[in-house]
């Protein structure tokens, strides 16, 4: 790593050191050493081939210029959904229990110690820097309200480096619903390095829905790691609309039989937005199931990257795994890079993947126009129909509506 970056990161750490619990300081320092002894990935790194984070950060973000401000003119409550549930506030990357409106007190905990393991540079960066961790834990047979998590970033005074950290544990026979949304203010760049770990225990179900509609100077890396026990179910829905860089890493480990994982995604991007979805599902036990569908519409100079990995280990017989990535490219300036990857070591399985890159169906367009629908309207109609398939799995009606509105606004104008 370059000296200037190393010094920048060190400075941020030294400034924050007083806030960290002394008992976990050693662990944070080992994570920091890990970060400083590695480089941010660039083009030569297979996993970041099309998303050279190193260059993007170098160009747009400077650790030296980051500020840690605790005050803001945000009125958090204004942004809360008008629904019963747990409204949890993160401000500039750290959890704010006193600003949050918590319904299920028993489920939400704040943890200050840092003892999480890390596998890569972003993981380690988060472990070294996160101020506190939100632990959502729902006990056996307890029925909780949904969790709405709002991430607020205020970069009116200077650059913001945020490291939200969340742990979610669904004990046996529970169901957790989570919705994440991000709201930001200010024009200085924001670098979000989010780490979320999920454990879905036997017979439990966890749904996470993410809305990513950032300002163009927001750069986000999101590491979501999920461990699933026997007969558990995990759903992930991610909707990306805008941002400077959106990189989502979703890793699912199925550690028991009969696991079920669903991954749905939609990206509808314009301008210079760069969206990169990397998913990996690891099937290690028999009779498991995974289903993945990511759809995208890419316009102007936007770039979309998709990499889906499915691993079926030798013991995971009778696994069904499906993966699909469909793209519509509307502009010659836009680029789409997709890599659906299967690695299979078990023979009695059904696995398939498919991906397409195409444009608007001329025949469908002609059909609509010949029935008196204007060109733009016909185009919008087809694109809306294309995108809305990915809304089917959202558990909240109002979120469906909200995303639907975003889609229509984007496509009809």
């Amino acid at each position, binding site marked *: 790593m370059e000296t200037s970056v190393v010094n920048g990161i060190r400075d941020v750490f030294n400034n924050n050191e007083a806030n960290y619990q002394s008992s976990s300081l050693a662990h944070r320092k080992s994570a920091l050493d890990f970060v400083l002894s590695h480089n941010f990935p660039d083009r030569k790194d297979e996993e970041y081939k099309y998303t050279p984070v190193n260059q993007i950060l170098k160009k747009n973000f400077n650790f030296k210029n980051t500020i840690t401000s605790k005050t803001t003119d945000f009125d958090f409550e204004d942004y809360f959904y008008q629904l019963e549930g747990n409204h949890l506030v993160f401000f500039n990357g750290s959890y704010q229990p006193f600003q949050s409106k918590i319904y299920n007190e028993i489920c939400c905990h704040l943890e200050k110690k840092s003892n999480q393991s890390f596998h890569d540079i972003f993981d380690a960066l988060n472990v070294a820097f996160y101020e506190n961790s939100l632990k959502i834990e729902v006990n056996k047979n307890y029925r909780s309200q949904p969790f709405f998590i709002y991430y607020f970033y205020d970069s009116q005074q200077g650059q913001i480096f945020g490291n939200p950290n969340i742990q979610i544990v669904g004990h046996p026979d529970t169901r957790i619903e989570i919705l994440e949304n991000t709201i930001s203010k200010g024009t200085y760049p924001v670098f979000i390095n989010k780490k979320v770990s999920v454990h879905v225990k036997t017979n439990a179900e966890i749904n996470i829905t993410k809305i990513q509609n950032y300002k163009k100077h927001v750069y986000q890396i999101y590491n979501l790691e999920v461990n699933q026990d026997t007969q558990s179910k995990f759903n992930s829905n991610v909707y990306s609309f805008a941002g400077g860089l959106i990189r989502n890493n979703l890793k699912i480990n199925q550690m028991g039989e009969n696991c079920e994982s669903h991954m749905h995604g939609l990206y509808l991007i314009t301008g210079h937005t760069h969206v990169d979805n990397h998913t990996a599902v690891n099937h290690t036990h028999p009779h498991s199931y995974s289903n993945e569908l990511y759809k995208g519409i890419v316009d102007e100079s936007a770039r979309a990257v998709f990499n889906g990995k499915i691993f079926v280990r030798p013991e995971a017989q009778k696994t069904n795994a499906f993966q699909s990535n469909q793209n519509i490219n509307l502009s010659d300036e836009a680029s789409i890079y997709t890599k659906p990857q*299967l690695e299979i070591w078990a023979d009695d399985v059904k696995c398939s993947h498919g991906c*397409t890159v195409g444009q608007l169906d001329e025949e469908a367009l002609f059909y609509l126009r010949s029935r008196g629908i204007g060109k733009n309207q016909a185009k919008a109609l087809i694109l809306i129909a294309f995108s809305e398939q990915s809304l089917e799995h959202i558990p909240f009606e109002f979120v469906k509506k909200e995303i639907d509105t975003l889609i229509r606004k984007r496509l009809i104008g």
Partner: protein
Amino acid sequence: MSSDDQILEEFTSKEYEHGWSVNFEADEAPMGLNEEIVRFISHKKNEPKWLLDWRLKSYRHWAQLKEPKWANVEYPKIDYQGIKYYSAPKKGGKIKSLNELDPEMIKTFERLGISLNEQKRLSGIAVDAVIDSVSVATTFKETLSELGIIFCSFSEAVHEHPELIKKYLGSVIPAADNYFSALNSAVFSDGSFCYIPKGVRCPMELSTYFRINAANTGQFERTLIIAEDDSYVSYLEGCTAPMRDENQLHAAVVEIYAAKNAEVKYSTVQNWYPGNKDGTGGIYNFVTKRGICAGDHAKISWTQVETGSAVTWKYPSCILKGDHSVGEFYSVAVTNNYQQADTGTKMIHLGKHTKSRIVSKGISAGKSQNSYRGHVKVSKRATHSRNFSQCDSLLMGNQCGAHTFPYIDVDNSNSQIEHEATTSKIGEDQIFYCKQRGLDEESSVALIVNGFAKEVMNNLPMEFAVEAQKLLALTLEGSVG
């Protein structure tokens, strides 16, 4: 049905049919690789200075490179200094007629089922036979030269057609392209050269047959095919090697240049020694194959049946530069026992309205690993391009693996790319259906596998299709149950 039975019977209890070796007197270079060896090879071949310089430049570049590690294969480190880079049958060299050929060698090829004797040949395939990377005989030369077709060994072409070699050598695969192409460019000993002049449709299939004979040697041959405007050629390549306990290296380069309206069809049946049941021995097959559709409406079609080699690392590719040019890739890759294959293709769309089609069928059995790795790139200029890829894998047993790594990069808005892949095993209902009709399990599997691979087999020339079908059945021998 009876034919499938026959095939299996024919090969029962056989391991690797071509596993014998013959004791020719061979002319060899000392072990190891350095500039002296490169000079030695060049001197042996009596090459002009420009070629030696080209070799040395490649060698110097290679010496700086690191062996690539990204392929999904594992093998012990190759000791590049423990290989002999040149081995030639002593009595080979330049001969005027087949009568002068070492009788031992004629016998060798007859044992392989290749007749070098033109008169006896009915099907009319011109053969260039290469033993330990030196071309020993080329048949039907006269008939072909009447049409202006040049078909000869590479070293002969260097002397007789230097202008063509100078122009096209390394034009599709530059010496510095990758680790193995650089190695090949430095030490290649021979290979085939083929030139089809403007407007000529080559009347017969051209064929190269490669055989590694000597121990401890590597084979580094180079094939260059040039098809001028409006020409057509169909080219076949086959290969075998003796059974030896150590691993031998084969790093070949094949370059194809297709001008306007030209069509080149390149078919390979790769049957290098795959190693024994415990994974000892076998050939490391690290080959760089690439064709360029330089002119408009040109077409290059790769068909390959990969059954041999301990480790395969091969991506026959097409650069679709001319507008409306077409690239095709049909592949059946079968791995058994401890074989590993990482194979696929690259389709680089540069011209407008270019089309490519990829059909890849992977069959893994035993403890083998079979990977498809493909790259479809559509550049901004390549408007209205079209690609269709299909990669299907068949798994037999739960100790093998099938992997798919397709890269798809699209930089414009009016191209259409489709990729689909499935992985499955042979259905019990399918086997049941066959058994119910009186087939035993092994022939049922052979039948189903042949059906699975049919789409690719159909693209092979007749002579090869039969051989390939037999090979498929043989490779999967004993993998059922």
